[in-house]
């Protein structure tokens, strides 16, 4: 990464090695290496200890793969993880749809109560989790009881609803940032050419915001997959999720099995992301944040 030689060899498209090429300066390189060590040392220690032939995270006792075997054959862990994945997928899809709708409505229209709606969308981002967790607990117990004993995955409905509630505002924020760079004249042109409002939206606007939809989806997926507090309060008898399972496993003692499960997850995540980047082209991840290509 900090191999300066590569840059010279790489045929630079826009970046010429110049005064602003901070990546080539050693203080910045050293800084990046230090931050990388800081971010990754714990993860590497976790991975190393997943091969440790001891029950604790404390002293190295020898190499073993038995905890991988355990993690991979731990039916309740796998069940929890598949629950988490389904919840994250469903809530991501819903959050992206609802969040994009909100962002487009806020960007496109003047309407009474717009400021209030805008402020309201910020609240889920700022409310402490436990507060929302308790709110959801009471809500699903007293006001909107989610039927019990539904077949999987319908029994996950309450959790999915709660996850969408705290993720879609994040999606809306990301999508709005992208919409700010949209040239409204394109939309006008499409309409002049006889496209309906709906067609204009789907054929002109949505393709433009696609990168932010991907970024928003990544964010929503991450939030959903890692949530413990709110999930705990909305989960019922059949709905243990991965964080809830990990939480009760780890709270009293961290075992190599937890480390092994996490290592598998990290490796799977990395592989999936690499694949996604290869498929999408590398612009997908940066475009949500980056500037308009000129």
């Amino acid at each position: 990464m900090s191999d300066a030689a590569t840059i010279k060899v790489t045929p630079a498209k826009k970046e010429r090695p110049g005064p602003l090429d901070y990546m080539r300066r050693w203080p910045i390189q050293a800084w990046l290496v230090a931050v990388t060590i800081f971010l990754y040392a714990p993860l590497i220690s976790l991975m190393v200890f997943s091969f440790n032939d001891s029950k604790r995270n404390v002293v190295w006792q020898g190499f073993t793969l038995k905890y991988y075997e355990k993690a991979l054959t731990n039916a309740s862990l796998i069940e929890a993880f598949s629950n988490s994945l389904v919840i994250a997928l469903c809530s991501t899809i819903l959050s992206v749809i609802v969040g994009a709708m909100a962002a487009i409505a806020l960007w496109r229209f003047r309407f009474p109560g717009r400021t209030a709606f805008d402020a309201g969308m910020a609240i889920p981002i700022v409310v402490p989790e436990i507060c929302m967790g308790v709110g959801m607990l009471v809500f699903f117990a007293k006001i909107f009881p989610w039927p019990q004993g539904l077949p999987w995955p319908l029994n996950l409905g309450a959790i999915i609803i709660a996850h969408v509630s705290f993720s879609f505002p994040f999606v809306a924020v990301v999508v709005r940032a992208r919409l700010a760079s949209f040239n409204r004249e394109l939309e006008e042109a499409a309409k002049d050419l006889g496209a309906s409002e709906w067609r204009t939206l789907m054929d002109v606007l949505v393709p433009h915001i696609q990168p932010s939809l991907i970024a928003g989806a990544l964010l929503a997926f991450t939030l959903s997959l890692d949530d413990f507090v709110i999930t705990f309060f909305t989960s019922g008898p059949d709905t243990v999720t991965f964080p809830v399972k990990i939480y009760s496993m780890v709270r009293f003692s961290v075992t190599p099995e937890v480390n092994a499960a996490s290592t598998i997850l990290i490796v799977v995540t990395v592989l999936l992301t690499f694949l996604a980047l290869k498929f999408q082209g590398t612009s997908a991840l940066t475009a949500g944040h980056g500037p308009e290509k000129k």
Partner: protein
Amino acid sequence: MTSSRTHASRRSLLQGLGAAAVGISFGGLSACSQGASSSGGEGNKLNFYNWDTYIGTNTLADFKKAAGIDVNMSIFATNDELFAKMKTGNSGFDVIVPSNDFVERLSQADLLLPLDHAKLPNLKNIDPAFLDVAYDQGRKWSAPYTWLVLGIGYRKSKMPAGFKPDSWKYLFDSDQFKGKIAVLSEAGDMIRLGAKYLGHSVNGLDQATIDKVTEMLIRQKPNIKAFHEDDGQDMLLAKDVDLVLEYNGDIAQAKAEDDDIDFIIPKEGSQLNSDNWCIPKDSARPENAHRFINYMMDAQASKHIFETILYPTTNAAAKALMPDSYKNNPIIFPSAEELARCEYAAFDAAKAQVYEDAMTKIKAA
């Protein structure tokens, strides 16, 4: 309340659930249960809310074979979380495993179903000492499962020669082990044990005593390394500290890995703790729940559980079947005279807030 469970039990869990778990995750699509007939009208299902790795390797599968009931186990990490979920009702659980003070809290809040002893013949297997307890007289609401006692876990090689930390003083009121002490972060336990050190009972504390304990703990704070979240045995094993306030079951597991560790119940006495089987009032399957609890108290089934979880059992019949390494382990089963100095903490609705405020004050000081 408690504690680390061995990974052995974790493996067991998955083996125990085995094939059944696959069915569970698909919401009973595997309706092809091979067991005997189930109770009338309740179906062949049971929702069980348990601590993680707190059940025997094959217990749930064995129960399914014996009773034809599919047990769907969910897990909680603290009594508070359990209570919060019970509080709003409609939790969907049929059997829960609260600790003694929460049996009182839940029963006072009218959230439990009274147990029908006629359906629990295996209560005969329980050590009579655990049937007649202050927190549930006549065992109206709960059936005993495990019990624990708080004490001091310590690293022998770090003590002066021939020395045993046989008093709460070394944790609460002395700088002899400055920076090498970890105590519980649990407010009620800390204040009550502080009072015990000062010669009071753990129950019926007046405000003056609570204030005195608070002051003592504020004075002691510079000598304490951390208020741990019941992972004190890990801190002891990792040599982060030399003395921890912990449960005997946790220290027994730590000692199995590191023989330099030992456990002592201080001479002032200590606090007992017990986990119990209960049925929530709004359970939809009380019949199945009774059958399940009764099965859990069966001598053989119980022996199997305690072989896995290695906690002190309340089941005398099961204990008799256990190997010597378990039943004669002085950490798991302290002597009768040591236990005579210990008491259960009664639940006191008004005090919960007072203890919490005191602890907030101690941590903020």
